[in-house]
C-alpha cells in the first residue's frame, strides 16, 4: 500500500481537513499584487521574474520580492503574471 493511500484513508476516517496532513501548499492570491503561500517546503529557485518552491509551484511575474518569510509561510509581493504547477 502506498504511503499516500494510507494518509488519505486516515484523513477520511477522522475527517481531518486536507491541508493539515497533505504536503500541498495553500496559495492565497490578492489581485496580482501579492501571493501568500503556506506550507511551502523550501525555495528551489529565486529570480527577479520567477520563484520556484519545492512543491513544483512556480510564480511568474516581475520585480518579485519576498517580503515576509518563515519556515512554513511566505508572502511574495510584486507584479504577478501567473502561477504554474509542474
Amino acid at each position, binding site marked *: 500500500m502506498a504511503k499516500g493511500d494510507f494518509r488519505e484513508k486516515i484523513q477520511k476516517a477522522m475527517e481531518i481537513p486536507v491541508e493539515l496532513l497533505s504536503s500541498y501548499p495553500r496559495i492565497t492570491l490578492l489581485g496580482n499584487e501579492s501571493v501568500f503561500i503556506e506550507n511551502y517546503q*523550501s*525555495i*528551489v*529557485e*529565486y*529570480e*527577479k521574474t520567477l520563484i520556484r518552491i519545492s512543491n513544483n509551484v512556480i510564480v511568474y511575474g516581475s520585480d*518579485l*520580492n*519576498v*517580503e*515576509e*518569510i*518563515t*519556515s512554513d509561510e511566505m508572502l511574495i509581493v510584486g507584479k504577478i503574471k501567473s502561477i504554474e504547477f509542474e
Partner: protein
Amino acid sequence: MFLQNTYRFTVGYVEIQVEGYFVERFLNLCLNRNIEVWDINRKYDGIIILKLHHYDLEKINEIAEVTKTEVKILKKNGVPHIANLYSKRKIFLMISILVMILIYLASQRIWQIAIIGDFSFPLEEIENELLMEKVKVGMHKDDLDFDSIKNRIYVRRSDILWMGFEINGVKLTVEVLERTDPPKDALTGKPCDIISDKDGIIAKIFVREGTKLKNVGDVVVKGETLVSRSGIL
C-alpha cells in the same frame, strides 16, 4: 504589521547583501535554523538583499561559509544602532536633555508680574501687598491660590474693590480696581449733591444712589446740579 515593525526597530536590524551561486540554499538554511529574515530583494544574478536581526549575524556567517556565499553589511538601523551613534556624543545628549528639563521647570514658574488698573495710590503699595502674600517673581504657579490671596488683601485694604489675576504663560497680570465712595459733605459727613464745575454735554451718567437729574446728551452749565441727594437715607 505595525507592531512587528516597531519590535524590529527597537531590537535593531541590519540590511545585508548575499552574493553567491546558492542564494536559495542560503535562504532555506536560514529558515531551517529559525533565523528571521524579511524584505528579500533580488538585485540581479546571484545577489539578494535581505534584512535580519543584528543578533543573528554570527549565525549568518556560519551559513555563508557552508553555502560559499559572500555576506556584506549594507545598512544598520534600529534603536541600538542609533544609541551607538550617540554614544560618542554623550555630553551633547546629556546637555540637550538637561536643557529640555530646565525649560520645562522654568515654564512652571512666574517670571513677570504686571499690575494694571486705574487707582490713585502708588504702585508700590500693591507690590507690597502681593509680596506679603508671597507673590513674587520666580514663584511656582501651583502655589498661587487666587481666592485666598484676594480675600486677605480685601480684608487689609478697604480701598481695593476688586482684584483680577490672570496667568499668560510665565506672566502674571494683576488688575486692580479702586473703591470710590460717593462724595460726602466735608463738614457733616452726610451725602450731598453733585454739582457740575464746568459747562458741557453729558456723555455718560450712572447713578447708584440719589436721584438722577440729567440724562445723556443734556447740556449742562457750570453750577447746575447733576445728581440730587434726595432719596439717600
